[in-house]
């Protein structure tokens, strides 16, 4: 009488486990990569005389310890989500977009201009419902153009996008420096810094709660992540992008225009990065300032890889990186450990994610997914 029951029970349990298994496997290596990187980070902190537990406590407190901290974490995470999606989308298309930094900069500049100059140029005050989309749209357009250029060059001359996007970053830096020190400089008499004037009230995206800097741009980022997933998985365009990325020859055989797809992919990637810049301008700073290279470009690569180029993964990875950057200031304040240790940890995370064989070997996990290979030499 007991036998049929015994036979039934294990069957139910194993089905549940089977359903969970892919999910667990997907997050396992990235999670362990982060964990291992933090352990090594702790060793590094210890080696230079610091207290790792106090440091990490400070980091945690700074990132999640209060409503203000959480809000600041999302503020940091928002551009990371957009930039991470940009790089991830390019990866899906078999392309390596290191130009997120430059595309972001142009997106910010364009958005700022539409934000502060358009009402004057047109001679009318614009209602927010018109001005905000125009501003954000300008950012998307600028980023898209900046991304499309290296895409076009690759499609039609074979020039590898890695170096071109890096060069475009430096060109963007120079051009924005020129604009923000010159024609677009804030003419306010008290101002000496290279930055634009504040954008009009009608162009600003409001914060969600008064007093905290958490803004609707964050919600937009989450929504866009969902849209990117849907486009990639459920539309023809997404299919073309993924196929051209996985196997260009097979794609051509299937009738996909690979060169057109390359340009479109890079353009969309640029659009996403441009959004990162645009939301910073419209929702956070209300202007664009010649900031210091926070290194969004490289961070975005790490985020895209950590998130396994899946939009949900990217969001989670972006939140992690945002938390680390945000919490680092508090960590330095409390323990005098320099914020640069975060960069070391992030570099290690990237190392372990890229060479996941190392993680697999440490923790004895079998390989299940195929490897991401993007390099096919310099093309041409």
């Amino acid at each position, binding site marked *: 009488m007991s036998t049929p029951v015994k036979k039934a029970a294990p069957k139910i349990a194993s089905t549940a486990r089977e359903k969970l298994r892919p999910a667990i496997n997907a997050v396992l290596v990235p999670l362990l990569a982060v964990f291992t990187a933090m352990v090594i980070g702790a060793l590094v902190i210890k080696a230079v005389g610091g207290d790792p537990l106090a440091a990490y406590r400070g980091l945690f407190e700074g990132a999640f310890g209060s409503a203000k901290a959480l809000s600041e974490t999302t503020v940091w995470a928002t551009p990371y989500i957009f930039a991470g999606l940009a790089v991830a989308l390019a990866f899906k298309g078999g392309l390596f977009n290191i130009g997120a930094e430059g595309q972001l900069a142009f997106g910010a500049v364009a958005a700022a201009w539409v934000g502060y100059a358009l009402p004057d140029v047109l001679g009318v005050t614009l209602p927010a419902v018109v001005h905000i989309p125009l501003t954000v749209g300008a950012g998307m357009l600028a980023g898209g153009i900046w991304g499309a250029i290296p895409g076009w060059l690759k499609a039609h001359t074979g020039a590898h996008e890695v170096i071109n996007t890096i060069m475009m970053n430096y060109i963007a830096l120079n051009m924005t420096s020129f604009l923000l020190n010159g024609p677009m400089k804030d003419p306010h008499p008290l101002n000496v*810094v290279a930055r634009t004037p504040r954008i009009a009230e009608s162009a600003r995206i409001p914060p969600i709660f008064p007093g905290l800097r958490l803004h609707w741009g964050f919600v937009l980022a989450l929504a866009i992540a969902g849209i990117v997933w849907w486009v990639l998985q459920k539309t023809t365009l997404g299919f073309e992008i993924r196929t051209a990325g996985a196997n260009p020859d097979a794609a051509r055989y299937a009738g996909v225009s690979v060169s057109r797809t390359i340009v479109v992919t890079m353009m969309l990637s640029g659009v996403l990065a441009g959004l990162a810049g645009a939301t910073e301008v419209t929702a956070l700073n209300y202007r664009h300032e010649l900031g*210091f290279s926070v290194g969004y470009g490289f961070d975005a690569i790490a985020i895209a890889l950590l998130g396994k180029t899946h939009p949900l993964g990217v969001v989670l990875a972006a939140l992690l990186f945002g938390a680390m950057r945000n919490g680092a200031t508090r960590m330095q304040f409390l323990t005098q450990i320099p914020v640069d240790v975060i960069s070391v940890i992030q570099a290690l995370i990237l190392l372990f994610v890229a060479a996941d064989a190392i993680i697999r070997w440490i923790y004895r996990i079998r390989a299940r997914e195929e490897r991401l290979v993007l390099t096919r030499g310099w093309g041409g």
Partner: protein
Amino acid sequence: MRKYLLASISLLTVVTLLAACAPAGEGEADCSDPDVFCVGLVTDVGKIDDKSFNQSTWEGVKQAEKELGAVVQYIETTDSKDYGKNIAQFADAGFDVIVTVGFALGEATLEAGPQYPDVKFIGVDQEQYPGAEVENVVGLIFPEDQSGFLAGALAALMSESGKIGSVCGTDAVPPVWRFGEGYRAGAQYVRPDVEVNIVYHNDVGFDKTFTDPEWGKTTAISMIDKGVDVVFGAGGKTGNGALLGCAEKGVMAIGVDTDQYYTVPEAQSALLTSAMKLLTPGTFDLIKMAMEGNFPQGGNYVGAAGLAPYHDLADRVPAEVDAKVQEIDQAFKDGTLQTGVSPAKPE
């Protein structure tokens, strides 16, 4: 395989819980205590290590620690969007004086002033404009144009080739502009036919313009190859590079901000003097005033500026030249001489 997995996951959970739930802070000084006088310094995006600007101000704060018993700390800003946040870290913890270093923090400091009325703010290089003063914010400013003027006059008088030069950070920063143009004005004042070549490092972003010694050195050497025999290096580490280029090529150099004889000893053989703005005593004096209760009610506090001693090159400076320089210096102090340099670069 599964055992390792479980082991690692549990380890992960344990450590995370440990980190999150452990008790906060050890025996740190409590700044909210009225008897504990705390001074915080927020740097510009740049570091405490720049051998001039941020560092000299920090020296002033450390002097307060040593002589006045203040508890001191600094935060380095890594991103300009964090200015407000970093100021708030100190203010919320009950610090009594917050020093913000650099004109770029001007706006954030003015915003923080009214939010934290009990805190005294010292804004280094943040000129407070009449009508826009905030009671607890004092701008520590310096007459860099006078300092530069003296340097220019000295350089013009000491130059044998009739060509002098200057390698500067970006002229978008008013103090740099004043140093550079003061140098030009001073040179032309004593020797109208002297050729003055000033190169501002405008081609890079703010993060690099004061931290590019390589460019500074290459530019200085390029000038020297064309006959320049005195170079004024005015722009943080970029300027330091110029001083090194002079030392390598055997021409005279003039430093900036502090007596660079001590901060760039590699250039001692070439260093004629430095156009100083005395950040350290200026900062210290204001902190002392705050502690004693005589902090100025908003507005500006003008620090001291002047030339450093000649050190190793003292015997190369003829008496008449030194006399002329002293004469100009005195004229500034009397108010009988104006440099004619605009406070910031005209649009």
